[in-house]
Structure formats: C-alpha cells, structure tokens
C-alpha cells in the first residue's frame, strides 16, 4: 500500500523533474545567447570582413541577412532558438563548417578525459577518506589536510607540475602526442585532483558524522569491529550523497577541460572553446556552452532520479520535494568555481 503510493509519487516526481530539466536547458540557451549578444563591437562582421576570409561584400551581406544579424537581438534570439529546437546548431563563422560537425569532432576526446577524471577523483577521494578513518596516527589525521590542500592549488599548476615531472624529467609521455594513454591519464589526473578534493571533503565529513550517530555506537555494542562497522553501516549512508556531488562535479570537469586541454595540448571541447573565444566564433561558443549545460542537466536529472531508489529514507518522500534528494545542509556545499 505504502509502496504503491510511493511509486505514484515517484512517477510524478520524475515527470516534474524532467520537465524542469527541459525548461532549464532552454533558459540556459537563452542566457548564453543574451550574454554573448552584449559583446561590445560587431565581431561577426569583423570576422567576415577580415581580408583572409575572402568574402565579397555581396556574400557578406547575404550571410548577414541569412543569419538575420541585421535584426534586433530578440528576433535573432527567436530564430536562433527555433533552429536549436530543430537540432540545428548553426554554422561556424571561422571555418564555415556546421557547428555540429565541429563539436562532434572534439566531443569523444573530452568525454574520455572527463570520465577518466571523475573515475580518478572517486578512487582518490575514497582512498583519502578511508585513510583518514583507518590509518594510524599521525598518518590518518594528516590526510585530513589533503582535500584542503588540493582545493588551494590551481589546476594549471598541477598540470605544469605533472608535465615537468613525468614528461620532461622522466620522459614517460610526450605532451604533443595527446592520444597516448599516459598523456590522457595525466591530463585526467590534473583535472581529477580538484574534484577528488571536493568529494573527499563530503565523504570525510559524512563518515565522521555517521560514526558519531547513535546507531554506530549501538552497532558496536553488538560486537562489530571498526572495519565491519565501516563496511556494513557507515559506508552506505556516507557514500549516498556522493552520487549527488559527483553529478554536480560534471560541471567542474567540463569547465576545467578548458585549462587542462590548453596545458596538455589536447584537441577537445575545452580547446574549441578557447579557440572560439579568441576568434569570436559565437555560434560555436553558443553551441558548446549549451551542450555543456545539457550534459550537466541530464546527468543531474539522472542522479536525482536514481537517488530515491538508493536511499530508503527518501523513497516515500520523493514525490514531495526535490531537496530531499540533496545532501543534508550540514554537508559542505561543494564550491562551484572552477579554474
């Protein structure tokens, strides 16, 4: 009976969250468009008029009117948005290729980088958190400083350090040869360290908090040892919020790819962003930012939908509030600024 009510609540919850996600994606597109449109000057025509582009005045006029660039911003937005809804991301101003084509070219590389970075971050975070709990003094307590330290080091510095050490000194990989597994590993490590620090912070705080809960003491009074207590009792409630945090970290990884790809000389979404910024290739910039928002929103939607299935406490509440699937207020909010 309770389960049936729960399921109905869950379906309502899922549908509402999905609808919200669609709205958020559309608004993200609009917001990006608005921000890009306040750009001073007229970079579009500047780019087109660049002698190197080889367009004639007539061609430029046709292009400008084709894209409606002579129209008011709101009208442009309307056209752009309707094209976006049909799946058309427009044409790059720099290369004159379809934006979807350009993006599709670089997405796999960044996807591999981002996924490896998240995987490395999770492994690192759990290693640190377990170390904090179970390594003897002074090693365990000393590990507590690690997340804070990782959060204080700029990503670009980690990248430079890794390259200096493993590429220049030890010659393990070449920076130019970006497709090699080792190069990808070190790039992912660069990106993953900052993320691991945020996950480790949440995990350490949760393990501490759960270990202080009444039930932990009561479980020990049933003869459980430290390791059994951790594995059977503390791990699940501590690790559950990590699902949510990990989903939020997708944004960190996508943003961080700009820096990491620049340092490791990788072709990817991040370097495409950097190139589009320097050439003022607005359709590409618009497309990449929107795509990142789509990935973020979809991953977080999945996380929010999965969470109630994992945590029995929120299953029945799922229909009521979105915030139930979020980490408790006591859990440190992950800082969202990236480098």
């Amino acid at each position, binding site marked *: 009976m*309770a389960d049936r*009510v729960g399921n109905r609540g869950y379906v309502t919850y899922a549908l509402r969250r999905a609808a919200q996600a669609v709205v958020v994606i559309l608004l993200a597109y609009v917001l990006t468009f608005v921000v890009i449109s306040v750009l001073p000057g007229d970079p579009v025509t500047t780019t087109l008029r660049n002698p190197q582009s080889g367009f004639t005045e007539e061609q430029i006029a046709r292009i400008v009117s084709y894209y409606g660039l002579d129209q008011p911003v709101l009208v442009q937005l309307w056209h752009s948005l309707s094209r976006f809804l049909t799946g058309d991301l427009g044409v790059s101003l720099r290369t004159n290729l379809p934006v979807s084509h350009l993006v599709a070219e670089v997405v796999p590389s960044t996807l591999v980088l981002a996924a490896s970075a998240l995987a490395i971050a999770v492994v690192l975070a759990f290693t640190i958190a377990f170390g904090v709990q179970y390594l003897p003094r002074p090693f365990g307590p000393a590990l507590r400083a690690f997340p804070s330290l990782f959060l204080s080091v700029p990503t670009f510095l980690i990248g430079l350090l890794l390259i200096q050490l493993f590429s220049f000194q030890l010659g393990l990989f070449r920076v130019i040869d970006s497709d090699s597994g080792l190069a990808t590993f070190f790039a992912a490590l660069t990106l993953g360290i900052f993320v691991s620090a945020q996950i480790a912070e949440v995990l350490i705080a949760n393990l501490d908090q759960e270990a*202080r*809960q*009444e*039930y932990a*003491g*009561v*479980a*020990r*009074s*049933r*003869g*459980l*040892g430290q390791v059994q207590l951790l594995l*059977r*009792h503390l791990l*699940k*409630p501590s690790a*559950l919020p990590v699902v949510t945090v990990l989903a939020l970290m997708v944004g960190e990884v996508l943003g961080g790819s700009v820096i990491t790809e620049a340092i490791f000389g990788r072709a990817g979404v991040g370097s495409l962003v950097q190139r589009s910024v320097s050439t003022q290739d607005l359709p590409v910039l618009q497309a990449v930012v929107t795509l990142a928002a789509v990935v973020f929103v979809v991953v977080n939607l999945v996380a929010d939908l999965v969470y109630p299935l994992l*945590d*029995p*406490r929120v299953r029945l509440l799922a229909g009521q509030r979105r915030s139930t699937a979020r980490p408790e207020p006591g859990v440190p909010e992950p800082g969202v600024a990236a480098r």
Partner: protein
Amino acid sequence: MAPQDRLTTTTLTRHPLPAPGVAPTDGPHPAALLRVEGLSVAYGGDEVVSGVGFTVAAGASLALIGESGSGKSTIARALLRLLPAGVGRASGRVEFDGREVLGLPERHFRPLRGRTLGFVPQDPNSSLNPVRTIGMQAQEAARLVEGIDAGERTDLVLETFAQVGLTDPRRAYDAYPHELSGGMLQRVLIGLAVLPRPSLLVADEPTSALDVTIQKRILDLLSGLRESLGISLLLITHDLAIAAERAESLIVLKDGVVQEAGPTASVFARPTSAYARQLHADVPALNPDRYADLRAVGATRAADPSTPVKIEVRGVTKTFGTDGNRITAVNGVSFAVPAGTTHALVGESGSGKTTAIRLLLGLEQPDVGRIVVAGEELHGRSHASLRGVRRHLQLVYQNPFTSLDPTWRVERLVREPLDRFAIGDKRERSQLVRAALESVGLGEHLLSRKPSALSGGQRQRVAIARALVVRPDVIVLDEPTSALDVSVQADIVDVLLRLQAELGLTYVFVSHDLALVRQLAHTVSVMERGRIVEHGTVTQIFDDPQEQYTRTLLDSIPVGAGSAS
C-alpha cells in the same frame, strides 16, 4: 530557592503494580558479576565521572540515577568501552566475572560486547541504521550466537521479535527503521540486546524518548525478560520513581560523584544525602501536593462561579493535508478556562494538544468552531487586530534551546515584545525588562548574555520573562519543562505558580506528564487522537477517572514500588 522538602510520604490513591524487578530473589546474590572500583572518566581535561564504584550481582538489578551532566550515561559508555575515541579516557577498575576489562586490548574486549554485555540505547529512533533493513541489523546480533546456520539465525531473530511483543515479526524484519514507531523500534532493540543472551544488560534511559503509556510497557518488558532469562540489569535513568520501581538497588549521582547508594527501599524511602532528598522532593509523582498553598489561590477562583471565563474554545475542528491523506488533528474540541486558573491539556504525542494551542494562539485557523479570548473573537480578524489580541495572549515554548534567537542577548530578547508593541519609552522598557527578569528569579548580570551562555533552566526563565513583560492575561505553556531536569522543573513550576497567585494570570498548560499536571492545574482535559475524551477538575480526573484511556495514563505514572505507604 527550592521550597522545603515535604518528605512525609504522601498517600497515593492507587496501589502501584508489583514490579517484577524488585521481586525477591532467593537469598543474597552469590558472586558479583560486575564490580566497578574508582572509575573516573575525563573528556579532554574535564573529569566528568570521579571515583565511582558499585557492584552488580548475577541476576540483580541496579539503577544509576542522575540529572543531565551527572555522568550516568558516560559510565554506561565507559563500561561498554564506547567512549568517543581519542576524547574520553577512563581510569579505575572494571571487573567482569572477576576479570579486569578496562585495560584489555580492544581485540580481547570486543567479543564481550553483545555476547556478555548487552546494550539498550536511549533513543530508538536514532539507534538503528536508517538505510539498512532491521533484519540485516538483527543478523549481526544473531551471528553472535555460535553453532547455528543462516536459516536458524533468521528463525531465532523472528522468535526473539515475537518474544519482545512485536505482533508481526516478519514485517518488522523486512522493514526499514523509519517504517516502525518508536515503541516498536525499542522492542526491536531490546530484542537484539537479549538475543545473544548476555549476562548483563545496560539500559541507558531506555524509555525517555517514548510516550508514557509505551514507557510503562517497555519497562514491563525489560523487567519480564530480566526475570525469565536471568539477565542482570544496569538501568540508567533520570527518573527516581522509575528507578525505584525497576531496580533492587540505587545509586544517586551528581556531577560524576556518587551521592548515595544502597538498596532501593532505604535510598528511596529514607534518603540520607541532601541531594537524594532534594531529588525525591522534586519528582512530581511523589509529591502531588507540593504546591498546594500556591495552587489554592487559583482553586478558589475556579470554584467561584462569579469568576469570568477568560478563554472559551467551542467545537473547534482542524484538518490537515490534502484529499488522499487527510488527518483531523483536532476534532470538536471545547473547553473553557476561568480567569486566574490553570487548565491542563493532557495527551500523548499525536493527541492533537499542540494543534489545539496553535489554534488558540491564532497560528492556525480552525475549519469549524470559535475561540474567544478575554471576550474577543480570535479568528476572522485582520493581522493588525490579531496583534492586539496577542498582546494579552503569550506563549512559552517547549524547548528553550530553539525558542530563543541564538544571536540575541537576554536584554534584547526580553525587550523584543515591548519594542514590537511600542510600550513605554526607552527607560521604561529597560525597567520593565529588569522587573520581568527579577520576577522569574534571574539577576541583572545575565542581561548581556546570549542564550548559549545560559543553562536550560535559565533559558526557560528568560522565555517566561519575555512572555510576562507585556503583562498578558493569558500564557499558554507548551510542555515548558519537558526538556528540563526535574530539579529545574520544580523551580520553574514554583515561579509559574507564584506569578499566577500574584498577578492573576490564566494558564493553559500542555503536558504529557499527569503527575506534573496534578501539582499545578485546576481543570484538566484529556486528549486522545484529536478529541477530548475526559474533562473535569483535577480531583475528578485523578480520583475518579471515567474513561479507560485516562486510567491507562494514570497507571503509567511511575511512583516507586511499594514506597508509598
């Protein structure tokens, strides 16, 4: 400030049930199962338990009694060696079955936990892992029993669940903790503790988070199991009456030091230490007439037919929730309170008493019915005119730890209502604040403190001063002492009754504690599931209850077995 002890034991109107815990056993207990000598526990540099010693014989029961900060729970944790790691340090000697265990390496001590030392925790709602099923956690206890396979373990768990009075053991086994009530969870926890058949059960305030009627049933269960399984019991409680009812000998603790120890009969009936005597005097159930003189003032008013009616609640109903899931929190509730008297609303959790007073304060709107306070209709008013009524109608909350803004100082807290209602000029306000604090027995030196620098009793006095400072006619008291120790409660009750006698205040007093109600109220409404099931004067309700539910409530008051003669 506490009134003179009234130790002449009072005649109670009903005879307490024979408590199994004190049932005479065969002769003196042979060997000490647990012997504690010179036990001290320190957190950081603070010693919270100093040189405590006692013994528990096999099959015997001992209660540790004390208020908060007495170190009683710390002793329990020290015995189980579950003190917070790295912070708490225990020293002294703890012998279990003749074997010193305090200095044992954790490796050697761990097998004792669960198998020989069982533990029943204080708050059942937080004592089971919320994300694992009860069955999975019960298996941990069953694994301590040697020589049985997985199937037998499950059978044993289900059998134990039935033994502790869970009507549907299978359902409890499959449930997550949040799906069961507090009473059921405590049965589960007791079951898990006794399942491996330990020789000693340490129960840390096992009922203080439960309703009174459930409290009695759980204590009966513990006593019954103790007897049938021959387990010794170390009961830790703040309630002298419970201790006396359930244990053969008592130890009274204060600030980590033993004040008095001995067989229940002597410690309870003839306490020799000042603190034990004080504690005895402060337990409402043992001293129903403690405030008879002060209460008489209001009783005269209540008996006088010419006393005007201050509060009238008529046929009030309030329903919460939406279509599929409606709960009628208050159902056709009516009562009237004469000016200058105390009316008590009594009930367990979920009885609707809190909703009733929220309606009375205009914090909720009733679906049906009317409420008249001091001749003024309370509902259907504008915000501004409701404010006017509220000036005469103040509230003291249950928990003084949440009802005072932690960022404000005492002076500002007490002055807030004066500022809001724009009463007097700056100088007058300051005088009124001081006067209000004085009337609740707080000195001026507290004016610049923040709530975190006050004790619970001081905070609740500040809350009362805040309610008093605008000179209201009516004060609604929502379990004002249930978060406080009995000695603090006694002080607060004394303050409230004096103020009523002097200022002619009308109180609506909400409580689950019938013994306390008897001490201070004039009329009583007993609530159950949103309805008033019985209504009358204190004498009528306590001496001649008509309803079964009222009788159950009255029977649940612990009074200390056999001591009231």
